């Protein structure tokens, strides 16, 4: 095992009487694609929202080994989380729809550019240092546009892109923020098989070539089994399994959570197929 990048200890999140996440402990590693799976309503997105500062956890400790050494995420205000190197996407895509694709990617580099523009003052007078920084930002955007195949779309309004490309754009935007850990909330939802395959390739490339760890929530079991190095399974806010895909597939608790207690005939065929026969994995 390599270095940990994210250590979640006893995370609990309550909304009034509802316990959305219950005493969750797991570790994500720097060279891994980690997947969080579980039935709908298992608390996966809540975990993400706790990590990225949108919710304040009721209890627990979230250590992130970011750009500036370890930080406790639960103590950070939401907007401070990204600068430590944690970027995320959303289940229901959240783009700046009226702005162009390129602008979306440049906004993602806001803090770096803000510093370069002397908090606007230097920028107003067109300082050369700011122009350089902006050119670099465009280069970085260009790079990720190329990786995600969106180069042709750079100057189009983000909202005019088809659904699959919007998903890609959101990932590219998160990458432009310069993360060490990329958190993706159901990135394959609504993608066709070809797009899903491309997404898988991209995530593996991030891990292998760019040293970016990935934490993803996903329902597409074939994708998860194929690319994840490590899977955490949640059910009703509790962790019921944690391990490599091969182990997870055989785990009786997981099978029970997904398939229910009773006869196996009742399950949706795709789920059964995904769970049983997703081939090589990892």
């Amino acid at each position, binding site marked *: 095992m390599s270095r940990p990048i994210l250590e979640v200890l006893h995370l609990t999140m309550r*909304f009034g009487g509802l316990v959305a996440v219950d005493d969750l402990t797991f570790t994500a590693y720097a060279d891994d694609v980690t997947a969080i799976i579980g039935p709908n309503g298992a608390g996966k*997105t809540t975990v993400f*929202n706790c990590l990225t500062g*949108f919710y304040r956890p009721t209890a627990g400790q979230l250590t992130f080994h970011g750009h500036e050494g370890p930080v406790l995420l639960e103590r950070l205000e939401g907007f401070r989380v990204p600068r430590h190197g944690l970027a995320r996407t*959303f289940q229901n895509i959240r783009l700046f729809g009226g702005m162009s694709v390129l602008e979306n990617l440049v906004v993602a580099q806001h803090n770096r550019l803000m510093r370069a523009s002397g908090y606007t003052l230097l920028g107003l007078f067109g300082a050369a240092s700011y122009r350089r920084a902006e050119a670099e930002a465009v280069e970085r955007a260009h790079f990720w546009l190329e990786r995600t195949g969106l180069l042709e779309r750079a100057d189009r309004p983000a909202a005019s892109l088809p659904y699959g490309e919007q998903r890609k754009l959101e990932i590219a935007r998160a990458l432009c923020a310069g993360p060490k850990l990329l958190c993706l909330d159901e990135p394959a939802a609504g993608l066709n098989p070809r797009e899903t395959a491309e997404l898988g390739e991209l995530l593996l490339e991030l891990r292998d070539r760019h040293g970016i760890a990935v934490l993803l929530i996903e329902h597409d079991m074939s994708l998860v089994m194929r690319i994840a190095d490590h899977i955490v399974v949640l059910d009703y806010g509790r962790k019921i399994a944690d391990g490599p895909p091969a182990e997870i597939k055989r785990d009786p608790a997981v099978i029970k959570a997904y398939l229910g207690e009773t006869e196996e005939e009742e399950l949706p065929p795709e789920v059964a197929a995904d769970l049983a026969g997703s081939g090589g994995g990892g």
Partner: protein
Amino acid sequence: MAYFIQQLINGVALGMVYGLIAIGYSMVYGIIGMINFAHGEIYMIGAFVSIITFTLLGMLGLSWAPLALLLVLIVAIGVTSLYGWTVERIAYRPLRGSFRLAPLISAIGMSIFLQTYVQVAQGAKIKPLQPVVTGGFTFADASGFTVTISWIQILIVVLTLLLMVGFTWVIARTPLGRAQRACEQDLKMAALCGVDVDRTISLTFVIGAALAAVAGLMATLYYGVIDFFIGFLAGVKAFTAAVLGGIGSIPGAMLGGLVLGLAEAFWSGYFSIEYKDVAAFTILVLVLIFLPTGILGRPEVEKV
């Protein structure tokens, strides 16, 4: 002590008026999540229709107050409700699904339009009404201070309470109330379940306008004078009441109205009348900043 009780009585009467207007804000916000900025003008129109009808009846020689009141009430409610319906139909319905600020901007436009419309049609001068309901009970305490409860104040309280009872019944027991509560939870889902969302929203505006009309009538009787500008301040105060009570909650709107009415009565009674409106706006600002969910409201969880 007598002075205190007098302010209390004035405050309750005032609070009832604010509460009635506040319900209109609260219901609309509950269902479609917009601030109906023009609602204050609906109240103003209610007051104008009342004063016009009173004058008309006077010219026709009808002088028996109870009958005149009843007729005015019916006409005011009828016409003002139609205004409420029309405003929703023209200015808000086409905007469902538009960008975030569109309905509010449209509502501001509507508010300016209605205000100027009445100013142009009826003139900018204040309109005095000859007292229709006079007299009341007077009590004196040992020190010689007197406390007066006027018939108008009694009328305001009784009418408001009656309306509240009827209204609560509508919300709790009728199909309309059920549809309204469903829309409040989830507009799309309600539509999928066969609720006629357009009709429900229209009726919400109609009910809100009807209550505002009653408030307009009572304010006309209470103050004896109105002009085209009264809707702005009354609207702001009633909106404050709605937020204070917890926007979306109908008992909350009444409660907020009472708190605001009492605050205003005591402020003008004990501090200065000059700063009365400053006080109202200050309460508005403080409530929005520190108590945006209100007394009876539910906290909102940000959906990510």
